């Protein structure tokens, strides 16, 4: 079996990271999950710059973006990704606590592939993350490099 491409997960909240990772672990996602803490790191990661110059050359299978992050927000990062010819084909899922219409509308306008509101209930959250992981990591067929 080929080495699975990683999932890029941008989230500044450690609790969310831990819970999300727990959810992924729980639903047997084998893909490596690369966690970054803000939008700038997302861009650095994808462009192999900053702390990610020596990163193995591969695009993530999906990018999970929180909106509210320090430095560069999820929306801004989304905009950069979707306007970068090398990156725009990577599926981006906004995974956020914000159910604000403004955020949803803006995200879709920028070409987001999915917008998922984190449920407060842990069970529902687990369900959502699991479904997300399964769909993007296993079901979805992304463009090959």
């Amino acid at each position, binding site marked *: 079996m080929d080495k699975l491409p990683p999932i890029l997960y941008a989230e500044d909240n450690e*609790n969310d990271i831990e*819970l999300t990772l727990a959810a992924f672990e729980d639903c047997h996602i084998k893909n490596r999950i690369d966690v970054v803490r803000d939008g700038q790191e997302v861009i650095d990661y994808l462009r192999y710059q900053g702390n990610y110059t020596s990163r193995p050359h591969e695009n993530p299978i999906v990018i999970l973006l929180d*909106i509210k992050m320090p430095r560069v927000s999820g929306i801004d990062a989304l905009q950069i990704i979707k306007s970068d010819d090398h990156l725009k084909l990577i599926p981006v899922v906004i995974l956020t606590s914000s159910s604000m219409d403004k955020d949803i509308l803006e995200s879709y306008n920028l070409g987001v592939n999915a917008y998922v509101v984190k449920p*407060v*209930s*842990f069970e529902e959250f*687990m369900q959502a993350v699991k479904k997300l992981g399964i769909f993007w990591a296993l079901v979805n067929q992304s463009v090959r490099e």
Partner: protein
Amino acid sequence: MIFLNKLIQNIYKGITILGNPSHSYTPQKTTDPTRKLLSKLPVLVFACDTQGKFSFWNEACEQLTGYSFQEISLNPKPLALLYPELGNNPSIQHIIEPRIPPALFTLKGVQKRIQWQPIQDLALDDTQEQWYLGINITKKVFHQELLQLQTESIEKLSKKYPIQIIFRDLTLHINQLLPGNLSTVMLVQKDGKHLDPTDCPQIPPEIVDVLHSFPIGPNAASCGAAAYYGKRVITEDISQDPNWEGYQALALKYGLKACWSEPIKSEQGKVLGTFALYLRHARKPSALEITLMKKTVWVASLIIQTYQAEEKLQESENRFRTIFEKSLNPIFIADDEGYYLDVNQAAADVMGYPIEAMKGMHVSKLQIIDHPSPLKSYEKYLQKGREINELSFKRPDGQIRTALYQAIHISKDLNLSILSDITERIEMERELQKNKELFETFMDHLPGIVFILDAEHKTIYVNKKMREIHPIKEIIGKSASDLFPPEVAAKMTYYNHKTLTEGYQVNREEIAEPNGKVSVYETHRFPILRDSEALLLGAFALDISDRVKAERELEEYRKNLEKLVQERTLELEAMNKDLEAFVYSVSHDLRAPLRHIDGFSQILFQNIQNPSQKTQRYVDKIRTSIHKMSTMIDDLLKFSRLGRASLQKKPIDLNHLIAEVIAEFKPDLAHQEVKWIMGELPIIEGDYNLLRMVFENLISNALKFSAKSKPSTIEINTNPHGPNKCTIFVRDNGVGFDMAHADKLFKVFQRLHTEDEFEGTGIGLANVQQIVKKHGGSIWAYAEPGKGATFCLNF
């Protein structure tokens, strides 16, 4: 020679004797040669016997009488022939009888007067002859008569005899002078084209009739022609004169054969009338008769002129009298002593006395105000001779009047004063003055400037305020350019012109007063019209500096306020953004910890081996709390979102909407028996999703609070004509609530029931109200504990 001497003596004596007829002479014998001599003498001499038979008749006698000695001597009654006027058989004594005038004798129509004297001592040839010497005194007598005639006429004239009588007497006298003949005086009528006879009783009435309105003309008989030409016209023989055509028969009928007419002329030569003599013989006048006519005409002219002058005088006097009497100006005539000799009606009226009472009244009787002694004033006036003055006097009826009078001394008995009653005028002036004062007082109390200009923009009136501001001595007559700087004056002149041509104007003008203060005036200019033509310009200007200052301040405030509002709006917008950010953090940041608590507590529980029931319960409590908080956050988010959301309005059938909502609830009502009462609901304008949220909320509440009633009765109906104009109401038969807490009903997080009794976040009704308000509607509720609640909505 002795005889001759005697004769001459006699002749002279005879002449003298005329004045003394008692003298007589002694006759003396004469011889034939003497007779011859006597017959040639230029003196009248005749001789006759006692029987009256003429024996001598000299040539002078023949010449004078026209009768020859033969005619006389052969006539049996020679004296009757000579003196037809003396009767059939006059004696010689009749002839020589000394009388004045001596007897007339008419010789072939010519009258003569001879003064005969017997020559006493002349006797010739011893005959019984008596000799007589005669002197022709015709002329002398005539002149005497004429003089007499003139004297009489003038005397009558001076005695103011009527002109008709004077002329009647005159013509009668002339008729006497020329016995058998007739005379008339005719006067030119006023038209100057006709003549009228004066009184002439001896002229036959038939002729008088013809003489009336006798035409003046070149061919109008004698008198008409004489008047026409202004010259004497002698008609020697009426029967032969073509000018007499038409009158000849009449004249001849009365034996009038000749007519001599002499015009009566004024000193200026104007024809006043004619004097005519009608003769019984067709002949021309003698020199003496011409003289008679001339003298008569002279006296007639005098008479006529005098009368005409008197008539004129009378007329003029009458005229002046009339003027005096009828004059509306009071006229007084007084003598030097101060007695009124005459006054006219107007004078009596103004003084308040009857006219008769005024005549003879003394000036001191008059009550002259301010002149205690009218007599003294009168005396003063007499010294000066004339006076023009004003006086006030009190009439007997108490009225006080004022008059202007003019007095002039003409003569002792003629002090003329003319008076003009000016009481009314003075009263009018006083009234006018009062009105003027009222006007000025009013104007001077006005808080603004008043000025009136004439059509040339020259000032004719200003009030006190204007005089105070512009203490220029003479504003009157000045125009704006004389009073204000050029640019201000130009503006004013423009406004003035516009007012006079277009009508009312109101303008604001900034005017620097002499003290340097700049004031703003609101000037109202209006034309003062007569016959819709602007005559004057009136203006009222109010100092509105304070108002303008206030306006400016207000404007400043307004601008500041606008700025402030703008600032506040910006602040508010910023706050709104903050709020949005807050809501964002609520939705994002508040949920996260909850999720974490839930997540980790779940993981924790999963990690506990064989958890006790207690542990399980605690975990459940944690999770219930988390759920509740999450719901609250969601509701809160919804609430804040509603506040900012815009409405998508369209017509909504409430029946349809309610049915949908109820249908949605039905699956959850397995354990609740519900009795639905539905009315016919209206269609309203609104946002479908939001209104649906409203009814979900209300029906959910109704179900929730009536859950314990068996069955739950829920009525959804309309009552638009009720006192509260309810569009739709939702009523339940649930637990209701105490109206004392009704004010908390629609407030966020306010609950009227414990959570143990009924679930809820306390945000639902707040959201409902928010939506209803956004639709411009209102919501209210009424309830009673245990008796259900009704929520009414009005859109």
